[in-house]
């Protein structure tokens, strides 16, 4: 055969910049959509992603990958893993699908933004594949979760969550919309494909895949690790765009975007990924702790990638590292306590064995978060379940949209970081959340978090029942303790002795 090699024609595929004449360049590539920051068209042509695919390779490889994950699913369908899985694992799946399946389909819009508006022709080519990839991720995860709708109404949230005003869904939308859908092509490349996909998606799609394999959920493990192979391919766009930015004197802009979105991503993962890895996943199937995964993928790999591009760690790095011992533990207590307000059944993960594991992975856990669980456990042992359920609403951060939390016990540090902007009082869970707001107040100032909506009279009646109705949660959907408090049995026996 005398087929051409890829490098003999690849430059012609991406050699498609031209000089507009009949319509001005700045109209075809409006700055608000393109974000070229004064870097001329020709400079963007230097965009070069290390791993290249052509259309023919793409459809072939992707067809084969899909054949793989669908056949694993079909092969294991009869075994019906989910039906007999530990309830904590089921909650992991429900939280994951609800927050991500529809968001991944939406991510095709972010890729399409780059494919249409980037002035780098190579970016427009790669992003077209990225756009297809995200359709794949949305569609696969909807198809794989759909078969469980017969098991409980909570599975409906795999599709429905992001259409609701449930608080975690608002938090996810606020972050995703900020990162993926409301910025110019270049910001999207840096924030989504570099900061988020190069770093954090490994956590969700490889870390959780490892746990899934341990748990015996091979369908899910296979599915999400296959997704990550696409992520790592289209994530290359971020580095390639950053290189152009750095070479054209825009390193400070790039650093700033990374600093903002890295923190926002961290906060979302501390809600979504932290609790499922350290509390919901059955103890015997936990491959590593959330912190260990973060150390491997973020502190190790991602920082190396920043270094390679001449970029720095975000300015608040020490606070971030310290937060690895705190944020998700605190959020987990909050989510468990407010369990009727989420679409999955939070697993407490606070049995004696699990607490021993937590103390080992997070020395000092027992004297901080453990104390909160002591009180909760004591109430359960004494049959005072009502005291483990919420009656009032928590204070929410105007950036992360999640409860303002901190470390309980001796190291009590929960604090609101307020800001008055144009006469309105905002609350933030950390100085960094407040800093994010201050960078671009126009993006955020008119948004109302859940509590703002209660105060504005949108939630009626303004109590827990009204809040649940506003969030779209009915009995059958609202979360309960995943194990029906079985984890507290050992404490009950001890109390009886």
């Amino acid at each position, binding site marked *: 055969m005398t087929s051409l090699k890829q490098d003999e024609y690849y430059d012609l595929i991406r050699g498609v*910049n031209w000089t507009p004449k009949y319509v001005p360049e700045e109209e075809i590539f409006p700055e608000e959509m393109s974000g070229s920051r004064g870097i001329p068209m020709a400079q963007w042509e230097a965009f070069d992603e290390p791993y290249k695919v052509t259309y023919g390779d793409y459809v072939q490889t992707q067809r084969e990958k899909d054949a793989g994950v669908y056949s694993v699913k079909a092969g294991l369908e009869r075994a019906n893993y989910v039906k007999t899985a530990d309830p904590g694992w089921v909650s992991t799946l429900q939280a994951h699908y609800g927050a991500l399946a529809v968001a991944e389909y939406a991510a095709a819009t972010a890729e399409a933004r780059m494919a249409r508006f980037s002035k780098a022709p190579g970016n427009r080519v790669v992003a077209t594949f990225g756009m297809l990839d995200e359709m794949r991720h*949305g569609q696969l995860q909807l198809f794989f979760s759909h078969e469980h709708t017969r098991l409980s109404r909570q599975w409906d949230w795999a599709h429905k969550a992001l259409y609701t005003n449930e608080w975690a869904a*608002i938090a996810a939308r606020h972050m995703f919309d900020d990162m993926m859908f409301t910025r110019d092509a270049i910001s999207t490349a840096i924030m989504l494909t570099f900061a988020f996909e190069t770093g954090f998606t490994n956590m969700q799609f490889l870390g959780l895949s490892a746990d899934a394999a341990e748990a015996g959920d091979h369908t899910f493990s296979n599915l999400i690790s296959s997704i990550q192979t696409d992520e790592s391919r289209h994530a290359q766009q971020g580095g390639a765009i950053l290189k152009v930015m750095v070479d054209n004197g825009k390193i400070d802009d790039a650093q700033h975007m990374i600093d903002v979105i890295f923190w926002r991503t961290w906060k979302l993962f501390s809600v979504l990924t932290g609790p499922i890895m350290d509390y919901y996943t059955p103890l015997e199937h936990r491959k590593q702790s959330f912190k260990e995964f973060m150390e491997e993928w973020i502190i190790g790999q991602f920082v190396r990638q920043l270094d390679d591009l001449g970029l720095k760690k975000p300015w608040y790095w020490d606070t971030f590292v310290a937060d690895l011992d705190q944020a998700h533990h605190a959020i987990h207590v909050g989510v468990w306590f407010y369990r009727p307000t989420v679409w999955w059944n939070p697993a407490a993960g606070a049995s004696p064995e699990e607490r021993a594991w937590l103390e080992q992975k997070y020395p000092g856990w027992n004297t901080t978060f453990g104390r909160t669980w002591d009180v909760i456990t004591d109430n359960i042992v004494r049959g005072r379940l009502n005291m483990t359920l919420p009656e009032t609403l928590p204070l929410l951060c105007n950036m992360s949209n999640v409860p303002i939390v901190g470390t309980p016990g001796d190291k009590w540090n929960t604090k609101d970081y307020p800001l008055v902007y144009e006469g309105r009082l905002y609350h933030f869970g950390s100085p960094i959340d407040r800093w994010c707001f201050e960078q671009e107040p*126009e993006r955020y100032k008119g948004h109302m978090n859940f509590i703002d909506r209660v105060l504005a009279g949108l939630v009626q009646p303004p109590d827990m029942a009204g809040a649940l109705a506003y969030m779209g949660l009915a009995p059958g959907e609202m979360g309960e303790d995943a194990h029906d408090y079985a984890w507290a049995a050992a404490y009950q026996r001890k109390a009886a002795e």
Partner: protein
Amino acid sequence: MSSAPEVLKPLKTWSHLADRRKRPSEYEIVTVNLHYRNRDPNIPWELDPDIPMNKWYRKYCNESPLKHPDWDSFRDPDELIYRTYNLLQDGQEAYVRGLLDQFSDRGHDQTIAPDWLPVLARLYAPVRFPVHIVQMVSCYIGQIAPASTITSCANFQAADGLRWLTHTAYRTAELAKTHPAAGFGKNERQLWEEDPAWQGFRALMEHVLVAWDWAEAFVALNLVVKPALEECVLGVLGEQARRHNDTLYGLLSQAQMRDAERHRRWAGALIDMAQSQEGNRALIDGWIAKWQPMADRAIEAYCAALPEAGAAELVKTRVAAAQAAMVQYR
């Protein structure tokens, strides 16, 4: 006090598909109702209501003059999902790879007639640019469309644009190897920017890039611009290629035309759906009338450069027929 509320029972499918009598297809399960930005038409994105992107989506999507109470009820007549798109196109690519290899092994490019070679250099190789713009505009329609079922069609259409771009790049590189002095792989940008044969299409395509209203962009691209371009560079150019013994391009252009036919099917289905609402037909006709003269000039300029006379009339007749088929879809 009211009695305890009923506990919701599990469903056989998503709640948004549950009250239909028909069991939903795989296509519906994974394609329908996925734009969560439709949740609140006033604030598509969960940030300040007046950030530029919220204004953009309100203006160019939610407040488009083309109205329908339920765009999410649109269905792709081909019901393509990601999985089946790759199945379909991997098969098509295997066919094209076979063509390319077979003709290359037979030394096809050495046998190209001296009078046909400059036609390929001038009127075929620069096709990379307009099909790339088809890709770009389709990506725009995908990101701004009011329903995920429309977005999916537009996104696959964008990918097909990249497919055509890739074939053209491949052939250009191949021709450059055999005919290094003919300018292949070197002159296309200049031809696209300066050759009178291309200026009609260049003007047309630059304008369609800034048709920001989602529905106007769709009508302009799918009913006017694409048919005009396809009937020129896949249609008559492919036919003239065959008559000049360039059998390879004759077959390659036909293979690409299969994609275009699929695009016309979904476009027809969407036009059909839009026309069920009063006022939309006039709006669509108005957009066609607005864009067609520019497309006609593009067709005339391009066809005037073809070796065989009379191509422009042929293309215009075919474009009109394609439009009529889409407008009277059923």
